[in-house]
Structure formats: structure tokens, C-alpha cells
């Protein structure tokens, strides 16, 4: 029998709609693929899934009734890892959860459960890193602007954190890699797409766009960063393990003077 290949639109609701389809048609041999990253199989039987919120919600409700709250958030976190093939692990995990009586999410000796737990852990780490490494710069129009390029799609996960924390300032966090951002207007957070001037360099703070005092505080922060280091304990290996080089370009303290 030819494996069915379900193609969804890349959203979480889309994925859940695909899962709904799997259960509805009692499919055994099936793959679920994101339309943007899908790989064409030679003899696959493709089916495009229409995202339907009602179906997605039904699946999600079912999942939640079977898993602990940690289990269901791990599932969502792992989905945001955008790893190729993660959908198949998620499906296997959900199938296992539905056939088990309860607590399937604690069975770390099941391959899919462990895989999802590990992916969720990586995504969780990236979320935490972004909460740490976002560096706001004050623009001329009084908006605190930050650009990021996270390994995983963590913007949906960090929204609440930043909204709660910076309730009294306008801010934008923009994911350059995925081309969308969050904008907080002192009231609520919305998802935005922005056009940047041609040749705009995200790693530079140019006086054309940024407030004058911005430069002073960046300088003070860099000075502080240097002064708080203890030279006789220098340990660059540890430093780089904590602050991997790929994040340096957006860290104010790591900019060349």
C-alpha cells in the first residue's frame, strides 16, 4: 500500500487538522509534511489538508485530556522546532498517548516520547536564550527595537514574557530569519511584517534611526561588561558555551568599538 502524504500549511492548527484527517480516515501508513519544506516521494499519494480551526481544536482538546500540561506543551514546543520529520514523531507520540490510559508523556523509554521531550528541551533552551539575548535599542520614534535570528520559531513563546516585563514601553522584536515580528503598542501585542530600507544592517546602530542616548547606554553597557570580568579567571571555552558565537552579532556588549 502506498503511503499517504498529508501536506499542511505550516501552522500548528494546520498540523492538528492533518492529525484529525489521519484519525478520521484511520490511516496507518502516513506522513505529514509542511508545504514549505516537503520532500516529494516517488510514489506518494499527496493530499493537501485544509486548515480548520474546529477540527484542530478537537484534536488539541483530546491531546490535553490524555497528557499532563507538561506533555501538551512539550508537544507544541517540539512542533516549533521546525525540524524536518518532527510531524511524524508528533503523530506517533499522539497515537501512543491516545491508546495509553494516561501519563504517556512520562514514558521516557518510548522512542517518540523521548525524542519529543528532547526537542521540546532544545526549543525551551532557545526560548530562554532569546529572553536573555534580546537587546533593545531605542529608535528615534521611541520604540525599543530588537532583531533576532533564533534557531527555532520561538517568537510565539516569548511574547508573554516581554509583554509582562515591558508593560510601559513600546517595543518590537523582529525575527529576521522568518520575516515577522511582534509589536507591543502599550496595550496589546500584534504580529507584524516590516519593510526595511535597502541595505539596512541589523547589526549596526545608525544615528539615522536610533536615538542619541542609545549610543551612550551601549557604551556604558560595554564598559560594564568589561569591568565586571575577572581576568585571572578567564575561561573562553565556558564563555562560548554559554554565549555561542552565532548570537554575538546582535549582542551590544559583543560589538567591536
Amino acid at each position, binding site marked *: 500500500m502506498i503511503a499517504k502524504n498529508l501536506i499542511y500549511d505550516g501552522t500548528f492548527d494546520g498540523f492538528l487538522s492533518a492529525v484529525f484527517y489521519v484519525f478520521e480516515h484511520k490511516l496507518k501508513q502516513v506522513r505529514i509534511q509542511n508545504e514549505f519544506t516537503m520532500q516529494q516521494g516517488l510514489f506518494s499519494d499527496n493530499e493537501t489538508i485544509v486548515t480548520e480551526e474546529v477540527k484542530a481544536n478537537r484534536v488539541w482538546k483530546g491531546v490535553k485530556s490524555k497528557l499532563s500540561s507538561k506533555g501538551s506543551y512539550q508537544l507544541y514546543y517540539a512542533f516549533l522546532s521546525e525540524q524536518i520529520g518532527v510531524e511524524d514523531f508528533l503523530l506517533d507520540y499522539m497515537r501512543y498517548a491516545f491508546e495509553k490510559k494516561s501519563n504517556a508523556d512520562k514514558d521516557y*523509554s518510548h522512542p517518540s516520547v523521548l525524542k519529543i521531550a528532547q526537542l521540546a528541551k532544545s526549543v525551551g533552551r532557545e526560548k530562554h536564550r532569546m529572553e*536573555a539575548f*534580546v537587546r533593545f535599542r531605542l529608535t528615534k520614534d521611541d520604540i525599543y527595537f530588537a532583531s533576532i535570528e533564533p534557531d527555532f520559531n520561538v517568537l510565539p513563546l516569548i511574547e508573554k514574557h516581554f509583554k509582562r516585563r515591558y*508593560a510601559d514601553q513600546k517595543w518590537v522584536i523582529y525575527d529576521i530569519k522568518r520575516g515577522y515580528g511582534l509589536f507591543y503598542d502599550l496595550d496589546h501585542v500584534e504580529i507584524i511584517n516590516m519593510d526595511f530600507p535597502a541595505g539596512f544592517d541589523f547589526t549596526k546602530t545608525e544615528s539615522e534611526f536610533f536615538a542619541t542616548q542609545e549610543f551612550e547606554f551601549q557604551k556604558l553597557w560595554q564598559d*560594564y*561588561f568589561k569591568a565586571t570580568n575577572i581576568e585571572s579567571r578567564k575561561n573562553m*571555552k565556558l*564563555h562560548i558555551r554559554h554565549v555561542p558565537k552565532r548570537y554575538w552579532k546582535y549582542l*551590544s556588549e559583543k560589538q567591536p568599538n
Partner: protein
Amino acid sequence: MIQKILKKKEEKELSFQRTQEKLKILADAAKYDVSCSSSGSKRANTNKGLGDATGMGICHSYTEDGRCVSLLKILLTNYCIFDCAYCVTRKSNDIKRAAFKVQEVVDLTINFYRRNYIEGLFLSSGIFKSADYTMERLVAVAKKLRLEENFNGYIHLKSIPGASDELMREAGLYADRLSVNIEIPTEAGLKKLAPDKNREDFIKPMVKVKNEIIQYKAEKKIIKTTPKFAPAGQSTQMIIGASGENDFQIMQTSNHFYKNYNLKRVYYSGYVPISYDNRLPQIGSAVPMLRENRLYQTDWLMRFYGFDVSEILNQQHQNLDLDVDPKLSWALRNLHEFPVDVNTADKRMLARIPGLGMKSVYKILNARRFRRLNWEHLKKIGVALNRAQYFMVCDSNQFEKRDLTPEKIKGLILQNSNSKYQKTLSNQLSLFS
């Protein structure tokens, strides 16, 4: 008019340079305080103000020595009337001195916080004029941040030894954490290195804060709106390797403070030589980082792994092994407790297997409800089998059957592991070979 504007610009420039200079001096002087914790508070942003100190702490960056940068850690001033031998800001030391104004610290904190550089402020100070005079200024900064700036981020204030109870009470109302560093683990050591300080002065504010926290917790149960009092508790710090104490004495002191003053943390800070004073290790001698690491491991075993300090350090074992971690060292001395069957053992015993952290312990407890675990499962869960394999059995007939001596096991483990301290270790070992 133009001249006026120019003058104003010049003044601004000057004030920036002054702040810059002060920041360099006063951050440099504060860096020997190792605490940078920003977790454990429960200060939510409810007033639509700035900041939120709920949940876990965040390290926003790491210095090149690999330490977390979570708070703006500065001294209010490095002028000091005391002359403690181990301290860079001691009166007799010939260094540049500076002092922040209250408003300057407030501005720096707020502007760093708004850019997501920091979780909050850690403000300490040299003691100028008197303990109360100094404490009053520290409190003034915290008060201004809370009341005028609506700041809900994390504030850690240093309790100045000898400060009055009234000031300590006020400090606790605005700060999330208070700490007073005992610095030298024994009274004899303190007498030698800081003759003008006495232990009671350190203890007094600690007792006051402890009692206030107990009272706050009791009142909170009855009246929900009781204003918070130092919700992230108190901590202290000891310098390691400055005054000749052994590990047994250090951990005894640590245990004493955890038990009697309900401390959240005791920090251990390997002494960084900063002086030619002949009572102290000379400039150029190595910072005892490995020893510091072993002390932290012991601290963790005490607080999270159910060990009593006397099991690890006692009259017979006054110093921690440097080449193996304290849990392994304990296990080698107590081989009669092993091997442990991971499929049946209780949490307490699982936690005592070398190579198993508490995370693995919980994973094993959960996973073994579904099936009996074998080596493959344990490896995937993340157990450090190179150490653990000699101390456990699982669902497999392959386990260590030889009757190995502790020395033999230690040798096998060291052969198959890579320590980041290899270089330090091989130097130290060759001394005795």
C-alpha cells in the same frame, strides 16, 4: 543663545564621561561578589510599570571568565573606613575612589533594564562614615526605584554589617534579596585578616532579616496584602583559600548558616590575589577554582541530594578529593551500599549513585513504571554511565561482576573520563608522586 546650547551640550558630555568613569571603577570593585542570582522572587508587574521578577532568573550575558551577568552589580562607593586585608577597597589600598549619586544608580538601572541587558540591580558599598549612613543610601536607591520609577525588577541589596534594625526592615520592603558576606569561614581567620570587624556585626542584620521573613510569612497567611519582605531571601559568601581553613571547616560553617539563618544560598568565592600582604596568598598564585567547584558540588549534595554534611566531610575526611567529585568519593568509601538496582531502589538511594543527577533520578522513577529499564534506556535518558556502571544493576545480565576495590574503580573511571581540570590536576598530582 547658541553659546548657552553649546554649554549645555558640553555639560551633558561631561556628565556622561563622569558616569562612565565611575561605572568602570565601581563595577570593577564589585566583581568579587559572586552572587548574581535573580530568581526566587515573586514580584509581579501588576501596576503596568517596568519589569517583572517572577519565575526563574535570567543570565543576560556571560563574562569572559564564564560567569553569569544577570544584575548590574556595582558599589555605591569604594571609599571605605575598614581595612580588611582580603578586600580591594580596603582603606590602605592605593586605588582610584569614586561614589555614585543615588539618581545616577537609578538611571543606569532603569536604562539597562529597558534594553533587556539585566534583570535588576545588585548594590553593595564600601562603608563610609558609618554603617547606618551607608545603609541609608542603599535603601534610598531601592526606594526610589520602587516608588518613583515603578520598577518591579530584581533588587539585591547588601546588608551593611552593623546597620540598625529599622534600616534593615526598610531595606527588606524594597529589596528582593539581602545578603551579608561573612567572607572568612572562621572567627580566628577573621580576627587575623580583618581585625576591626567582628562577627556579631555580620550576624545582627542577618538575624533581623531572618525574623522579619518569618513574621512576613506568618502574617501573609492571615492578611494577603501584607507588603512583601525580601521575597528571594538572604544569602552570604565565603572566600576560599585566603585564610587556611580546610573544607570540613568551610562546610561546617556553611551548614550552620543554612540551618540557623534559613539562607537561600551560601556562595564560595575562590580567593583572587589582590595584595602583597604576607598574611595572604601572593599575587600571581592561582585562583583555587577546582576546589571552589568541589565545594559547590558538596553544597548541592547537602541541599538537593539528601546528604548530611557529615557523610561527606568529617574528622577523618577533612578535605574534598580534587580528582573525583564528592559523590563519587563518598560512594568509593561506602561500597557496601552498592550496587543499587535502578528498577527497585528508592529515590534516596538513586540520588546517591555517582553519575546520576536529580533530573535523571526523576526520569528513571517515571520511566520504570512502564517497563524495566536496561542500559540502553539509561544511556538515552542521560545517565553518565562511565561513572554509574560500577554502582548499579538494571534489566540486563551484563553488570560489573568483578569484585573491584575502590582504588581500582577510581582508576577505571579516571582513565575513561576527561576533566576540564586535567591540567590543574596533573600538576597537583605530580607533586606527590
